[in-house]
């Protein structure tokens, strides 16, 4: 379960270009719930995700994961509980290391790292199995350095790495936005499969309204650092792209085009 209690964050405080990124944002996500976050640029989506992961320190407010207050925890301590897939495929993987080594890094996210050998036969077999699910042939490229993979393969790898340890919370930050439509589709399908199979509590940010309609149990819309709208249950099942776009204060063609 994730709970955000009146989170507030102001950038450049007291200067001419002061910007309120999060303005008393409160949000609840039940265990196993898949929430899709939408909102125009500058609505506070990324700030919210950064605040949850710990990359951004809040001015006030609290972040609670599974009942524990993690507000004062640094990024690497929160990593025990949450996993994140970034928009940029470069960000989520270590380019100069091999596929297997990247899998190992993610595998040990919530465990204590010892002086034992990292990659052993048992682990390699497990990683192979997990990568086979993607159907991209990555299972045969365990010793390939990640920088030699395509953006789509990298992002798929990031996803498998993120869902690997069944994290308490999965954060997806526009994770298909940098991919071509076909690859985006593969990654999105793999995402839904993993989230449903493992019943992961998930927060997905997207600019793709079709994805917001098709996936998730609820749609959360942010505007100017606040929760503007939350569509759940029956209502979510019936919502359409046009409905969602209707809620944007500034309508742009880009949203329609992106859908």
């Amino acid at each position: 379960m994730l709970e955000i209690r009146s989170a507030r964050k102001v950038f450049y405080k007291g200067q001419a270009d002061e910007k309120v990124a999060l303005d008393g944002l409160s949000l609840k996500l039940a265990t196993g719930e898949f929430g899709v976050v939408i909102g125009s640029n500058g609505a506070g989506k990324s700030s919210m995700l950064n605040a949850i992961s710990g990359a951004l320190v809040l001015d006030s407010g609290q972040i609670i994961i599974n009942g524990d207050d993690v507000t004062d925890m640094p990024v690497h301590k929160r990593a025990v509980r949450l996993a994140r897939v970034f928009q940029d495929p470069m960000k989520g993987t270590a380019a100069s290391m091999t596929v297997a080594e990247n899998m190992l890094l993610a595998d040990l996210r919530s465990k204590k790292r010892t002086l034992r050998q990292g990659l052993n036969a048992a682990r390699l077999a497990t990683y192979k199995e997990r990568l086979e699910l993607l159907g991209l042939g990555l299972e045969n490229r365990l010793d390939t350095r990640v920088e030699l993979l395509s953006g789509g393969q990298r992002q798929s790898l990031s996803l498998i790495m993120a869902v690997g340890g069944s994290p308490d919370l999965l954060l997806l930050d526009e994770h298909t936005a940098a991919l071509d439509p076909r690859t985006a589709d593969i990654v999105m399908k793999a995402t839904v499969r993993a989230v449903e199979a493992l019943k992961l509590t998930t927060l997905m940010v997207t600019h793709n309204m079709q994805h917001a309609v098709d996936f998730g149990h609820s749609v959360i819309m942010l505007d100017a650092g606040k929760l503007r709208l939350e569509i759940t249950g029956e209502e979510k099942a019936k919502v359409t792209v046009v409905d969602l776009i209707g809620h944007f204060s500034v309508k742009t063609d880009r949203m329609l085009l992106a859908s």
Partner: protein
Amino acid sequence: MDLIQTVFTSFVSLIPVTLAQSLILAFVVLGIMIPFRTLNFPDLTSEGAFPLGGCVCGVLLAAGASPLAAISVALIAGFLAGCCTAFIHLRFRIHTLLAGILMMTMLYSINLRIMGKSNLSVFGAPTVFDWAPFVQPGFPASKIIIAGLIGAVVFILLNMFFKTEKGTAIRAVGANPDMAEAQGINVWVATIGGVGLASAFSATSGALMVQSQGFADVNMGLGILINGLAALMIGEAIVGKQTVLRQLAAPFVGAVVYYQLVSFCLAAGMPPPDLKLATGLFVLAMLALPSLKRSRGPAQARETIRE
């Protein structure tokens, strides 16, 4: 014909001495490689850590300490110096290069304080090279055996370490610090520990050097960094840097080849004062090579990221 023969004989006669020297200096190259390559932390501390190790070792030897104890204390002093550089960078967000320059400048005074004067003779004091089996102490062979043995042990241990769970985590910090942090790795601990370890190697090299040459000097680190970089680049050109094993072998191979090259240049009549210019030009050429290659062919395709 006569000239070539003279050059060749003087070069060959110097091979054992140069080899001993290069095996000792291989630890500095290792201390330069670890931050540069595995941590992506360009570090200049070695220029101060090398004489620090030398000064600490010299003072302890003069006070009658055992050679092994002198090296151990030098190693710890180097470790602390490296930790300071990494801490300055992380805590105050000062560029790694500037943090290194600050540290090596401050170390110069500290080194003078430690010795109390600018150089110290420890000739005749016992050294680790006295323990070499089968050979007479004092000859290059004993230095080659001891320094080579220590090098081999360090190489094997590091190769094992970088493949452990902790070692993989440290490499991840160099490859992508944000990703490493998101995978639960404490970037501070890994960086401080890693740079500390590297400086410990530089200091060890300084300590071994003092035992080898029989005196310590505050200026013994002058130019060691650029020599080490040149050696590292030669090593990487020969054995590559694609795997942990190759990357770790590069400093040792590079040091051995580089110092033989230097020795050959000197034997061939190059005036010693020109050596630093030649080394600098060589490092510059090695660094410039990739960009020269690129400007000839088409620009490399980069992954395009939305917005």
